[in-house]
């Protein structure tokens, strides 16, 4: 459904030297390579998490896939269209929701924006009514649609934005930081909605977010991007398997630790009776557990993977060091 | 001095805006110049002005507008609405000194560019100009400029002070600018108007901003100008006390809301 091949995007930016005369008469331009030869494929009914630090190229990629920006070089094909040509048949099948940007008529109730979209996307009356009701029900937004958009809170506005963007049942939904700036309840509402929506309508969703909980809860597939290059593209569980050698063992003790309790150096311990946390390599787990069984009495043991945030942070930091920013 | 340097720096940050703004002033001048030139074709004088004097009037008005009518007192309105003005009042310098120095910096830049544009204009179009020869008239001319500047300053400041009571300060200022455009003499000398209308105008502050100084320059001092000059001084004094009163009331009203 979505194909990117050798996609590169270079921005031209002005470079201020601080010297009044040159800035006035001889402006200097700098090329910034936002995307460096990236390639990936996304098929139907996938929910892809697209993560990377600020400036990594996530939003640029999504804007190119949706047709807002033109690629500098490379091939982009979405739903068998070239996005930058912005053919109406293409635009009618996609939707783009940006977290901190407004697409609704500001001074009027959201319902007016919905009616506008109804005409723009040529939705017939009955489908429109049904869709609006479904979405309102999923998002618990019945009372909100008739208030002026400017009077809504950020979380409420995001819900309205989502409804407006989904009225035409797009095949592909681009979500750029949809939960940014929202409190935890609003975030949860939106994330749950996206999950439910994808289940019901089998659309392809591409999601960027800074919040790992979003990505973890929604995406099975992850694309990690940094400095305009893709550094990981695969399933979330493979990420853990490939990059994480560490496990966390969490023991709830019955009695305090004996004084002769010792652990080998390479094993990190955190002891706060009755909790004992041990961070260790996967290979050592059997050893640790047998040691524990001998030495201590405990009521509970859990073994967890290293948190995804830690894994991802590690991957990004190492990519920072080995993959230098393109000039 | 620092205020001036900062003002220049600010302008260059928006250099395209700045260039375009100056260009607009030139267009306006071109329009008015050709308007009057056309009127004087085959006509030695009209409304007791010769072509020479009227063109000189137009050019003079252009420079004087940039000197007297340009102001940064509009920022005061924004400062009041945003609450920033409280910061200024807490600092150990006079707020008014700051406003005045901002204004002077702005006026200096405006005048500089205005004169440059006029010079370019003169070089290209080479109109005949009238040059005042009487020294005493010059003295009076500069005096009337000062008065005009003060009047303009106070009026604009008071329009900004409206912010103490309402956030809709845009509308009154807009209305003022429209009346100013017509009644200050920025595209025709006020004394071509019928005598009755002219006399009524003399009781408003509008003629004393840029028209009166220009008149003094063109005609030299005559007894007929005695009354207008006196009236301008009267306005000066009235506005001074009015401004002071409004400021005091405004501050009182403002602080009461604990902003």
């Amino acid at each position, binding site marked *: 459904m979505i194909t990117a091949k050798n996609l590169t995007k270079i921005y031209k930016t002005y470079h201020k030297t601080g010297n009044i005369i040159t800035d006035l008469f001889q402006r200097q331009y700098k090329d910034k390579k936002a995307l460096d030869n990236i390639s990936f494929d996304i098929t139907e009914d996938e929910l892809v998490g697209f993560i990377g630090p600020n400036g990594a190229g996530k939003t640029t990629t999504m804007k190119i896939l949706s047709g*807002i920006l033109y690629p500098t070089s490379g091939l982009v094909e979405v739903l068998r269209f070239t996005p930058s040509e912005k053919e109406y048949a293409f*635009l009618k099948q996609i939707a783009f929701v940006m977290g901190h940007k407004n697409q609704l*008529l500001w001074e009027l109730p959201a319902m007016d924006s919905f009616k506008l979209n109804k*005409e723009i*996307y040529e939705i017939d009356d009955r489908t429109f009514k049904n869709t609006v009701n479904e979405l309102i029900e999923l998002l618990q937004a019945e009372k909100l649609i008739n208030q002026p958009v400017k009077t809504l809170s950020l979380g409420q506005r995001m819900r309205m934005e989502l409804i407006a963007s989904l009225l035409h049942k797009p095949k592909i939904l681009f979500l750029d930081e949809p939960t940014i700036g929202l409190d935890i309840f609003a975030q949860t509402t939106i994330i749950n909605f996206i999950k439910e929506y994808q289940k019901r309508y089998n659309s392809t969703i591409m999601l960027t977010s800074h919040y790992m909980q979003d990505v973890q809860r929604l995406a099975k597939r992850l694309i990690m991007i940094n400095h305009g290059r893709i550094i990981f593209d695969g399933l979330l569980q493979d990420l853990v398997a490939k990059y994480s050698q560490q496990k966390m063992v969490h023991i709830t003790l019955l009695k305090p630790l004996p004084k002769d309790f010792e652990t080998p150096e390479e094993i990190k311990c955190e002891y706060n009776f009755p909790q004992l946390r041990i961070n260790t390599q996967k290979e050592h787990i059997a050893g640790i557990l047998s040691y524990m069984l001998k030495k201590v009495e405990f009521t509970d043991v859990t073994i967890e993977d290293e948190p995804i945030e830690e894994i991802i942070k590690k991957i990004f930091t190492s990519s920072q060091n080995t993959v230098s920013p393109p000039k | 001095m620092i205020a001036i340097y900062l003002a220049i720096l600010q302008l260059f940050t928006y250099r395209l805006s700045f260039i375009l703004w100056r260009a607009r002033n030139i267009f*306006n001048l071109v*329009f008015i110049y*050709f308007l009057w030139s056309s009127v004087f074709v085959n006509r030695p004088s009209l409304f007791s002005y010769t072509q020479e004097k009227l063109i000189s009037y137009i050019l003079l008005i252009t420079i004087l507008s940039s000197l007297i009518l340009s102001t940064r007192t509009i920022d005061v309105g924004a400062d009041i609405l945003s609450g920033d003005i409280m910061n200024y009042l807490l600092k150990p310098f006079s707020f008014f000194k700051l406003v005045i120095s901002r204004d002077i910096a702005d006026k200096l830049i405006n005048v500089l560019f205005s004169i440059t544009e006029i010079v370019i204009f003169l070089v290209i179009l080479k109109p005949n100009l009238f040059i005042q020869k009487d020294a005493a008239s010059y003295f009076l001319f500069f005096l009337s400029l000062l008065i005009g500047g003060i009047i303009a300053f106070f009026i604009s400041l008071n329009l900004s002070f409206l912010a103490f009571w309402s956030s809709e300060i845009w*509308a009154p200022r807009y209305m003022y600018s429209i*009346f100013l455009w017509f009644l200050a003499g920025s595209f025709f000398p006020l004394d071509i108007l019928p005598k009755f209308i002219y006399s009524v105008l003399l009781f408003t502050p509008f003629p004393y901003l840029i028209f009166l100084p220009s008149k003094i320059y063109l005609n030299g001092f005559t007894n007929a100008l005695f009354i207008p000059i006196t009236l301008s001084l009267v306005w000066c004094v009235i506005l001074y006390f009015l401004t002071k009163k409004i400021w005091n009331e405004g501050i009182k009203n403002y602080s009461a809301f604990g902003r």
Partner: protein
Amino acid sequence: MIRNLKIFWLYSTFSAKTAFQHRVGVISFLSGKMIRFLFSLLFIFFLVSKTKLFVGYSLNQTLIFFLTFNFIDSAAQLLFREVYRFRPLVITGELDGVLLKPFHPFLRVLVGGVDVLDAITLIPFFALLIYFILRIPSLTIQNILLYGGFLINGICLAAAFHIIILSIGVLTTEVDNITLIYRDFTKMLSLPIDMYKEPLRSFLMFGIPVGIMIALPSKLLFGLLTPNVFITSIIISAVFILFSLYFWNTALTKYQSVGS
């Protein structure tokens, strides 16, 4: 086509609703414009009745030049008001949302903010125009038709100007000043174009075709045109309008958007 009209209609009604919410500001602005118009009108009356002729035109004719200017200027402002709000659209990134919709962005950024109150001001202009036109001594049907035709052409040229302004906005966001310069140029033609000497006159007439937009209709009405000027004007108008559309499409390819 019908769909486009429907969308245009919706945007216009929404624009009216929004304007109604800000009616105090809208009415102040409108009153200001009316006062300015009245002042200018009075001045022209006053001046030209004293001088009898202005660059060879009678008071009646001068007034027609002036009223034609006001009519086209107001009609343009009425239709293209949304262009004045373009800068915030680009800066906040809201433009992206517009470009993603399956309709021509002009429906939103060019004519999406039709100003209903400006429509009301057109009525007095139109009425006054008719009054003064009827007082022309040697009026012919042909001239009237030419006048009307080039009035419409003037609005098309105004559209082209605004499209160019939008394109510049997409590239540099410096919309406001360019718009004001455009307004200044048109204002220079509120009085007969003959008042300018060459080469300025030809520049205004054909160079930046404000002359064709505003001065030409009136000249046609007075029967003052040669076939040469007539044909040149049509060609220049067509070229200018096509250029503006080309410029817009090019600007979009260079669009860099905002935010990362």
